């Protein structure tokens, strides 16, 4: 049994310790936001956060993760009460097919948590490891910039009090 803390909840997982986190998230914990893209850490669709940093969950075995804080898109908000990153992506209609979006959101979230005033250039550099095959890059960049601004104002008005637009 491996103990994993995902989005603040502790889980006991009965999987081989060498199993990649991505499989455990999707198959054992029914957290389906992170996607399988390439399985090689080359596309970014599986990106989640571990202790505040963006990592490829497809090649992170769970044996490395006991006692670490794992965060996925499900930890950013709910359908009824989306967090600023989710709100920004919805408002910008940043998804085309959507497969890359959870990875984009988590890498962007990791950036903005460590650097709340990230510039547009910082965002471009940070998102470099994540690929999008639909070509919605401009909307994704717009969404992340909007999320940055939302988070800065959200520091004044908590997410729960904002009206969905």
């Amino acid at each position, binding site marked *: 049994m491996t103990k994993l803390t995902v989005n603040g909840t502790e889980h006991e997982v009965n999987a081989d310790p060498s199993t990649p986190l991505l499989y455990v998230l999707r198959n054992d914990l029914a957290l389906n936001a992170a996607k399988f893209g390439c399985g090689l850490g080359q596309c970014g669709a599986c990106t989640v956060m*571990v202790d505040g940093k963006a990592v490829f969950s497809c090649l992170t075995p769970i044996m490395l*993760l006991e006692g670490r804080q794992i965060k996925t898109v499900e930890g950013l908000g709910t359908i009824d009460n989306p967090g600023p990153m989710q709100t920004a992506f919805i408002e910008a209609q940043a998804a085309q097919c959507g497969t890359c979006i959870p990875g984009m959101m988590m890498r962007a979230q990791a950036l903005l948590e460590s650097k709340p005033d990230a510039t547009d250039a910082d965002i471009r550099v940070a998102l470099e490891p994540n690929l999008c095959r639909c070509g919605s890059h401009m909307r994704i960049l717009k969404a992340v910039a909007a999320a940055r601004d939302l988070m800065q104002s959200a520091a004044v008005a908590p997410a729960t009090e904002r009206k969905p637009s």
Partner: protein
Amino acid sequence: MRFFIRFLTSLLLLVVIAAVGFAAYAWNRSIDPIEPPQRTAFDAKLIEDGAQLAAIGNCTACHTRPGGKSFAGGLPIPTPFGTIFSTNITPDPETGIGRWSEEAFNRAMREGVDRQGRHLYPAFPYDHFTKVSDADNKALYAFLMSRPAVAQTAPANDLPFPLNMRWVLAGWKLLYFDSGAYQAATDQSDEWNRGAYLVTGLGHCGSCHTPRNSLGAETSAHLSGGEAEGWAAYAINAASPAPVPWTVDSLYDYMRRGWHPDHGVASGPMAEVTGNLGTLPDADIRAMAVYVADLMEEPSAERAERGSLAIEHAARQGNLIELASAPAGADTPEARGEAIYKAACSSCHEGAKPQPYGGVSFHLSSAISAPNSQNAINTVLFGLPAGSGTRSAVMPGFAATMSDEEITDLFAYLRGTFAEKPVWPDLASRLAATRSGDYHVSVKPSDGIERGPENIGAIDQ
């Protein structure tokens, strides 16, 4: 008393003579400024030759800031003595070398002195460039003087007293610098001599691959392993740590393409070198390979045998069936490391995907068999970033997921299993310093010239 005064007078006289002598030695005349020549003043063929020579010299690596204008300088070069900023070598008349005559350029290459007569810091590798022929300097001059002029002044060097005074460099040169063009070895072939000329001259391989003394001068241990931008530059003489002995052919391929199936991909600053060498004629690359292979010497029968075994072992990998699960039980560093290796590394490093896009087998890895752990640490922590706008080998970094303890366990397994050597004694301190950033590492895509304006993939860690 009279004796004492006479003694003092003589001593003073000696000091004055020595000081005057040194001043005469240290002094260099200023060469008159010129009107910047027009591009059309240079023969097109000469410019083309100069472009290839500039690629061998890897001029862009220091004289271009990532994302900045080519050859406009301003890149900070960290040295053990302080930070030196590369200069603008575009033909801008005010901030570049636009007012330098060919004679002034030639003198800078040959003697390490700028147009105005000031000594240059040996971060500019004139200890090697002095060997460059007048004809090649002429071509390099034509190439640089026909680049677009960029007005950009480098920040002032950050060096402590007395190193901030350039005349001090005359003393350094007196101790360590021999000027003079390359002299061919008459008992060697033309090809060997061409290789030696490029490797020891413009290619300045020793700047990274030769160890330096406490005053920053290369020691006599020519190409026996040094350091560059936070990476170990391996010995490229008989002390090469490569599990498979290098040959003329493998050196040629590696320099030509940036990787070789028996050795893996060029990474760190070497990636930039192979990226640059990609533009050269085959004959020059082959000549360098001939010279370096000669320095490496014929491997002993025992070493050759180990090399063939490594190739055999590596070929037998790529069988994912046995990887399925981690070994249960034994709680030793090696067993924990093996579990991590099988779960996190083997899918690429023992996968079916061939190099360079698949990972190298650790049976063949110099990083694992090297006497110094730095490159293995850098690669695991920071990975190999993707080249921008080009196909490249990539590897994700594991800094965010593997703790120092886990990486130590991993290396205990890799060193023991693949190199049959004990784990490096200074691993813990190097690993901690590299992770914290106290030890600065420059991370670059494989086989690319990332400093050019078109490619800004380099990330400083």
